[in-house]
C-alpha cells in the first residue's frame, strides 16, 4: 500500500525525483512528520475545519461515524473498512490515507517525469513508511525500474529483516539510511524499535559495498546534544565505505496530521530548530573525514 507519489522532489536523492511513499512502518518515531505512514492499513484523517455536514460519510454506513451537536463524532475502534470512505467526503474533511496500487500503476506515474530524470540525473526514491517492509510488490517495482534504467534510491530505517534488504542489493544506486541514535534504550523509547537490528543491518549493507548516506533527524530532547551526535558520527565513520552524513533539523510541519489521525502527539510544544543550530555537528562530522551537510 502507498500513501503518496510525490513528483519534483529535490531533497531525497540526486537530481529531480519522484518519491513513492509506502504505507506502513515497523517504527513509530515520536517526531514522525508523516504519522499516516505508520499504519499498514488505511488511515482515516479528519479535519473538522473542512466539515460541511454533507452527511455522505454517515450514509456510507462504515460504522463509527455519527453526527454530533458539535460536528462529527468518530469512534475509530468501531470503524469498519475505512477504505470505503475514499473519495466520499466532497469537501475532503475526511480523507483516507492509503491506496492499493499495482506495480504497473506506479510505473505509469513514475514514467511521466522520465524526461526530467534524464536531464537532472534523477529518478525514483522509494520511501515511506518503510519501503523495505512492503513485501514482494516493492521488490517487483524495484526490479522493473532497474530494467527500465530508472535510477532508484531507497530511503529506509533498516529496521527490517536482513532478507528484505538482501533482495534489494545491487538494485539501488543509493541507500538513504536513517540513524537516529546509538543508545539502544533511548532509541527504543522514542521509536519503539530495536537498535541492534538497525546497526547490524547497516554494518552488513556497508560491507556489501552499497552506496550509503546516513541521515540523522536531530530532535531536541532526543539526540540534540554534542555527545549524542558525536556517538552517531563516530559509529558512522567506523563503517567501511560510508563517507557522507546529513543532519535533518526537527520541524513541526506534520503536527496537524496527528490531530487528524486521532493520535496523541508526544512532542507537543517542541519548537522547530534551524539549520544553523546544526553547524557544530557538521564541523565535527567533517573533522572525522565525513562529507556532511544540513538538510536533505
Amino acid at each position: 500500500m502507498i500513501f503518496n507519489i510525490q513528483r519534483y522532489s529535490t531533497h531525497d536523492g540526486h537530481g529531480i525525483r519522484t518519491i513513492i511513499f509506502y504505507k506502513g512502518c515497523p517504527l513509530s518515531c515520536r517526531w514522525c512528520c508523516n504519522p499516516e505512514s505508520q499504519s499498514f492499513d488505511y488511515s482515516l484523517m479528519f479535519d473538522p475545519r473542512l466539515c460541511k455536514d454533507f452527511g455522505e460519510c454517515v450514509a456510507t454506513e462504515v460504522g463509527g461515524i455519527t453526527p454530533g451537536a458539535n460536528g462529527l463524532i468518530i469512534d475509530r475502534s468501531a470503524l469498519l473498512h475505512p477504505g470505503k470512505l475514499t473519495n466520499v467526503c466532497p469537501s475532503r474533511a475526511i480523507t483516507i490515507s492509503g491506496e492499493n496500487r499495482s506495480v504497473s500503476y506506479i510505473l505509469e506515474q513514475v514514467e511521466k517525469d522520465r524526461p526530467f530524470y534524464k536531464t537532472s540525473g534523477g529518478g525514483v526514491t522509494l520511501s515511506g513508511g518503510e519501503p523495505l517492509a512492503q513485501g514482494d510488490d516493492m521488490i517487483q517495482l524495484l526490479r522493473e525500474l532497474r530494467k527500465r534504467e530508472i535510477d532508484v534510491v531507497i530511503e529506509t530505517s533498516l529496521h527490517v529483516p536482513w532478507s528484505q534488504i538482501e533482495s534489494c542489493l545491487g538494485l539501488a544506486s543509493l541507500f538513504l539510511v536513517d540513524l537516529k541514535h546509538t543508545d539502544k534504550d533511548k532509541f527504543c523509547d522514542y521509536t519503539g524499535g530495536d537498535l541492534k537490528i538497525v546497526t547490524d543491518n547497516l554494518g552488513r549493507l556497508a560491507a556489501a559495498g552499497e552506496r550509503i548516506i546516513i541521515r540523522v533527524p536531530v530532535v531536541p530532547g532526543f539526540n540534540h546534544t554534542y555527545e549524542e551526535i558525536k556517538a552517531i558520527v563516530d559509529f558512522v565513520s567506523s563503517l567501511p565505505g560510508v563517507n557522507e552524513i546529513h543532519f535533518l533539523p526537527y520541524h513541526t510541519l506534520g503536527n496537524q496530521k496527528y490531530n487528524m489521525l486521532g493520535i496523541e502527539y508526544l512532542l507537543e510544544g517542541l519548537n522547530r530548530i534551524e539549520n544553523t543550530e546544526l553547524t557544530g555537528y557538521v564541523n565535527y562530522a567533517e573533522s572525522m573525514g565525513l562529507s556532511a551537510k544540513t538538510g536533505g
Partner: protein
Amino acid sequence: MPNQWVCRQKQEDKIMIQTVITDKVSPRMSALREKVISTKPSVCTERACFYTEAYASNESKPVIIKRAIALEKTLKGMTIFIDAGELIVGNQSSQNRAAPIFPEYAVDWLPAEMNELDKRPGDAFYITEEHKKELVRIAEWWKDKTLYDRGKALMNHENRDLLDSAIIKATGNLTSGDAHIAVDYFKILSSGLSGYLREITFHHNQVRLFEQEGIRKDHFYTALTISVKAFQSFILRFHDLAIELANKEKDPDRRDELAVIASNCTAISERPPENFWQALQLVYFVQLVLQIESNGHSVSLGRMDQYLYPFFRSDILKGKITEEFASELLENTWVKLMSINKIRPWSHTQFSAGGPLYQNVTIGGQKSDGSDAVNELSYLIIHSVGKMKLTQPNLSVRFHKNISPTFMGECIKLIEKGFGMPAFNNDEVVIPALLNLGVEKEDVYNYSAIGCIEIAVPGKWGYRCTGMSVLNFMRVFLAAMNDGLDKKSGKTFQKGTGNFIDFNSYEELFMAWKQQIKYYTRKTVEIDAAVDTAIEEFVPDILCSAFVDSCISRGKTIKEGGSKYDFVSGLQVGIANLGNSLAAIKKLVFEEKKISKQQLTEAIESDFDGKEGEKVRYMLLNFAPKYGNDDDYVDLLLKDAYLEFINELENYHTTRFGRGPIGCRYYAGTSSISANVPNGAVVPATPDGRKAWTPVAEGSSPSSGTDVLGPTAVFKSVSKLPTEKIMGGVLLNQKLSPSAISSDSDKKKLISMLRTFFSDLKGWHVQYNIVSRETLLAAKKDPENYRDLIVRVAGYCAFFTTLSPETQDDIIARTEQTL
C-alpha cells in the same frame, strides 16, 4: 557581496575582457531610480493640445499629413528636460511618469473618469484642476471624431452588441491603438536618420501621381519626411538644452558630460551612431518618439544584446568605455524606460494591472548558424536589470538547447531577486514553428519577445503579434450548455444545439461547444477587421512605419500592408476552466453519474447556493481531474476543445491579406496579462466549481490552487497543448518561495527542470514569481513598507502595491509551488 562577472574569451581576437562588477548602484543611478519610482503618475495634456490644434487647423488635409504635422508640432513645442545626473536623455511628456493624452484614439472617457483618477484602487493618476478644464475642452472638439467612435460605427449591430456583452472585448484596441511591435534597430543603427531620409526621398521621387495609389503614396512619403525631420529637430532640442545646462553647470565633470550628451545628440540626429553611448541614446529616442506618436503599448526593443554588441565590443576593445560605465548607461536607460507612462480607461486598466508599458528587451537565443548568441553584453544587460529592479524593461531570455549553463545560472540569480524576471521564451519551439509559417531563415533567428511573451521578428512584423480581441471562453461554453443563450446578457447570439439538460452524452456537449465556438471565432475576426479598418483609416502611424520593413519601399503604412510579415493573435481567456469544466461533466455527470444533469444545472445557476449547491461544487472541485496535474483525461479534452477554436481561426485572414505581407493569418494566444480578473468578473458560475464573477485561470496556467502535483506535472500538462499553433503565447506563471531555490543544488535542479521543459517537452514560456505568500499578505496590508515589491502579474512585472485588491488576492491565491 561583489558579484564576479567574467566575460568569456573571444576566440577570433584572443582578447580577454575580465571585469569585476559589483552589485552596488552608483549614487546618481540610485537617485534617478528613486526619483522615478517615487514620482506619482500624473496626466500631461501637452500632446493632446498640440494634436487637437494641428487637427483643427488642418482639417482639409489627408489624415496622414495631419498626423505628421501634429507630431511635428508636438515634438517642437512640448516641454523637454534633462534630469540631474542623466546620461541618456529624452522625455515623453512634461514630467516623468506623466501620461500623455492621445485624444484622437478616445477621449470622452477622460472627462467622465477624471475626478476618480486619483481614487482608483489601482493605477491611480494625479491631475490638476487646470488640466481637467483643458481636457473637457479637448474632449468637446473630439466628440464623434475619435477612433473609438468611428471604429464602433464601422461595426454592425450584432458585433456592437457582442462587444457590449463582454463575451468579446476589443475596446482596448480602439482606445489604445496598436503597437505590440519592435522596430528594426539593426537598420536604424546602421543607416542613421539621414539614411532613412535618403531612402524616403528616393522612393518619393518614383511616385506616379497620375495614379490614385500614387497620390496616396505621395501623402505617405510627405508625412514620412515631415515626421523624420521633426524627429531630428526633437533630438537637436536636447543638444541645445544640454549646452544651456552645461553653461550653467558648476561641476566640471558634469559639464563635460553634458557636452558629450550635446554632441551625441548632434551626431545621431543625422548620422549612424559611432559608439555605444550614442547607439543606446538613439535607441532610446526611437523608443520614446514611437510612444509619443502612438498610444499603443508593448513597443519593444528587440535583441538588444545583438544590435548593440558591435558598438559595445569596439568601445571596450579600444578602451573608450569601461564596463562600469556601460552598465551605468544601461541602468540609466532602464530608468528612462520606466519614466514613460500611459493612462488607460478604467475598463481597460483592469486588463493590464500595474500600468505597464511592456517594453520588452530580449537577450540570448541563437545566431543564424545555430550557435549560442550570448555575449558579454547579454551578461551586462541581465546584471544591470537586476541592479535596477524596475518593472521596465520586461526582460526576456531566449532559451535554446545549447545555451550555456553559466548564463542560465545568471538567469536563476535574477529570478532569485524576486521581481519576476527574466521570462523565458524557447527557440526550440518558436523557430521551427515560424519556419513552418513561412518566415525566412535569415529572419527567424532574430525573433524577439514583444510585450509580455508573444513573439515577432523586429522590424519585419506588423502590429499585434498578440493583443487583438479577447474571447471569453467560459461565456461561450455556458452558451453552449444553454442552447446558445448567453444568460449574462440575456441574448442568444447564435442558436445552439440544445440545452445541457437534454444532452445524453459528453459527445453532445462537445458538439454544442464546437458549434458555438465556430460562431464566436468568426465574430472575433469580424470585430478585429473593423478595428483594423478604423485604425488604418484614422490613426495611421508614420514613424513606426518608417522603421519597419518594407513600408518605405512599398509606400504603405504597416496597417496598409507595409510589413514583410503579418501574423496576429487575439487572446483566449479561461483555458484551464474550459478543460476542467469538460472533465468534470464528462466524469461526474456522464460516466460516474455522481451528479445529475439537473443537479449540475441548478447548482451553477444558483452559484452553488445552499447546502446542495455547495456539495455539488465540492464534488466538481475535488472529484474531477484538473488541468495542471499531468492527467491525460482532462489535458486532452482541453486540447481537443481548444483545437476547435484554433482550426476555425485558420480559415481567416487579416485586413492586409493580398496587400503585400507574408502570412496575414491568425494564430491562437493566451498571453492574457491580468485579463483573467475582469474576464472572470463577467462570467457566472462554471462547471469546474468556480464561483460566479471570480477570476478565471490566467494564461495557460492551471486554475488557482488546483495544480497539486508540483511544477513538473504543470509543465507536462501545459506541453500537451498544441503550442506550435498558439504562437500568440502560451503563458505559464509559476510562483516559488524564496527558500525554494536558496541552495546551489536547488538552483541546479531548477535549471534542469527548465531545460527539460524547453528541450524535451517543447514548452513555450515560463516565468517565476519568487515571493512568499506571507510577504504578499503583508504587502497588501502595509503598502507603504512594500513600495518596491515587484510581482509578475502575468506576462510582466508590476509593483504589487499599485495593483487593485482583487488582483492582489488573485496573485496570493495562486499556488505556491514548493520545491
